[in-house]
């Protein structure tokens, strides 16, 4: 992994500055209406998808566990935030951030309940449990009174209006950037390295004294929290939600963003989330072919480049300018034959 050279710190700074610069450019363009109202909506959707993909990458890329119910956490968060802002009676400017926090917390609680039994075990139980969770939470939301059944909730107000189009964008962008930075630094922190060691070899890391259950649960619940927050933004961005918006296909869309970008590469997730969101907005006419296309891409990528297109490369703009990119780690299926299993 990347040794923290002096250069690395500068690279981080430059990347961060570029992110901030992009933020201000977009902000000014939105406020001066250079970017239209509908395009602003797409940008917010991109930010939400980047947030979701980055958080799923924590579990799928860094921890190496498959989660198939990320939309379920999104659903929980979306409903939690919406119910709070609809019923709290607080002014929206105060209720919205509290609602977002709440959505994260509720989603994280669900994460603990499902993650604990699945992650105590070795193997693929998390995949099936989260798949079941994603399906069942939707059925439950379809039948509960508080969630208003299949009709869903509506009437959530967006902070943005046509006169003042930027506040939602600011929230979505800042949260996306913070999540990306968090994921990036987490992967290089003490805890992140513990999580990575579990991915590489669970038995070995356990014998090194790493509390594997704790770290697995930590990564999973962290990701659930972020997915919940993203759900909260999503609900207020669209103003209406119903359970069918958070179905299995949605989870798959997030997963394909992670897989395509590269499992373990946060910048890969950012790029693929951006590209795929734009593509699916542009290719609305071909929506019935979209899932077939996604499935084919998933299979082909797994067969020929199992770690995703970028693998674990992180793209860094100053480095790109210098050496294009640096190889952080290389992972091919052939090199893994020596594993303990």
């Amino acid at each position, binding site marked *: 992994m990347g040794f923290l050279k002096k250069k690395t710190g500068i690279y981080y700074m430059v990347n961060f500055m570029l992110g901030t610069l992009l933020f201000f450019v977009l902000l000014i363009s939105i406020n001066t209406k250079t970017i239209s109202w509908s395009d602003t909506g797409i940008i917010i959707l991109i930010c939400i998808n980047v947030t979701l993909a980055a958080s799923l990458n924590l579990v*799928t890329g860094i921890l*190496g*566990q*498959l989660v*198939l119910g990320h939309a379920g956490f999104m659903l929980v968060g979306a409903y939690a935030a919406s119910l709070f802002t609809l019923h709290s009676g607080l002014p929206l400017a105060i209720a919205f951030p509290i609602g977002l926090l709440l959505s994260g917390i509720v989603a994280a609680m669900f994460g603990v*309940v*499902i993650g*604990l*039994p*699945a992650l*105590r*075990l*070795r*193997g*693929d*139980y998390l*995949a*099936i*449990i989260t*798949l*079941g*969770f994603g*399906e*069942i939470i939707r*059925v*439950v939301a379809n*039948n509960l009174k508080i969630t208003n059944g299949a009709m869903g909730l509506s009437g959530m107000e967006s902070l943005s209006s046509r006169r003042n189009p930027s506040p939602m964008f600011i929230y979505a962008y800042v949260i996306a950037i913070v999540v990306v930075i968090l994921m990036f630094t987490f992967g290089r922190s003490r805890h992140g390295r513990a999580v990575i060691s579990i991915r590489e070899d669970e*038995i*070995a890391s356990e014998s090194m004294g790493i509390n594997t259950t704790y770290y697995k649960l930590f990564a999973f619940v962290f990701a659930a929290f972020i997915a919940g927050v993203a759900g909260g933004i999503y609900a207020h961005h669209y103003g209406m939600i119903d359970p069918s918006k958070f179905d*299995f296909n949605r989870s*798959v869309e997030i*997963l394909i963003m992670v*897989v395509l970008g590269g*499992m373990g590469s946060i910048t890969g997730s950012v790029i693929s989330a951006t590209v795929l969101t734009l593509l699916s907005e542009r290719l609305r006419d071909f929506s*019935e*072919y979209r*899932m*077939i296309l*996604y*499935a*084919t891409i*998933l*299979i082909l990528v*797994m*067969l020929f480049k*199992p770690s995703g297109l970028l693998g674990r490369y992180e793209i860094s703009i100053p480095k790109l300018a210098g050496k294009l990119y640096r190889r952080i780690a290389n992972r091919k*299926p*052939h090199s*893994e*034959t020596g*594993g*303990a299993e």
Partner: protein
Amino acid sequence: MEFITQVINGLGLGSIYALVALGYSMVYGIVQLINFAHGDIIMVGGYSVYLVMVMYGLPVWIAIPSSIIVCALAGMIIERVAYHRLLIHNAARISLLITALGVSIFLQNLFMLIFGSDPKSMPTIFPADLIKLGSLELASSTVINIVVSVLMMMGLQLLVDKSKIGKAMQATSEDAGAAKLMGINTNKVVLITFAIGSALAAVGAVLYSNTYPQIKPDMGNLLGIKAFIAAVLGGIGSIPGAMLGGYILGVAESLTKAYISTTLTDAVVFGILILMLLVKPSGLMGKNRKEKV
């Protein structure tokens, strides 16, 4: 009386879960892969019965074998096209899982594209009747389900215990490397396992569409998850375990539907899985395998 009827209805439903669970269990036992596409094989089986009976107007006794053949072939093709390359390269588990997921999504959306997403109603496969046992009144489909599933399990157990290919399967699941050294063609064993598992799913599909005469492209989703839960419940890798798990799940579902709430059945089933993983993750009849380094 009502209670006993519900239990027997549950057993009938559980029989379908059990047949599908057997396929999950066998494949998992041999290649340690949760074959997400297995649920969709049921869907393929359902549609092939529909195609043969409605589109071509052929009788049942042609529809059932052809559905079994189609499913077995589909299972083998899936193994060869999607999993084989990863299996021989010993790829990471997560890659296999994602591929399996991709196959599942592919099948579902392909059938949605071909047949449309609206449910198709099935013709009668076996004539529906009420069977009276004393004061019990049972639907004939329930009895057929139970009888067929028990026969299938006994046949499978016999195959695995006595036949050459069954012993090869056991050896491969015990230690694939050693099995290879003993001259077992493990590639062939994996292929045959997929074929048998998918054929059982086809039988499950026939029973399912006889009991609930309706098919749709995403019917495999929940059915697949529940069958997998049944396999985990009974102990993955064990044939009687998968059957037991299926029956328990079916009865639990039927009792919940009758006495608690019709909408909460899925949540109850899911709760059973979580509880099981907390209490005895190896399943009711599973062996607790020690992990070796």
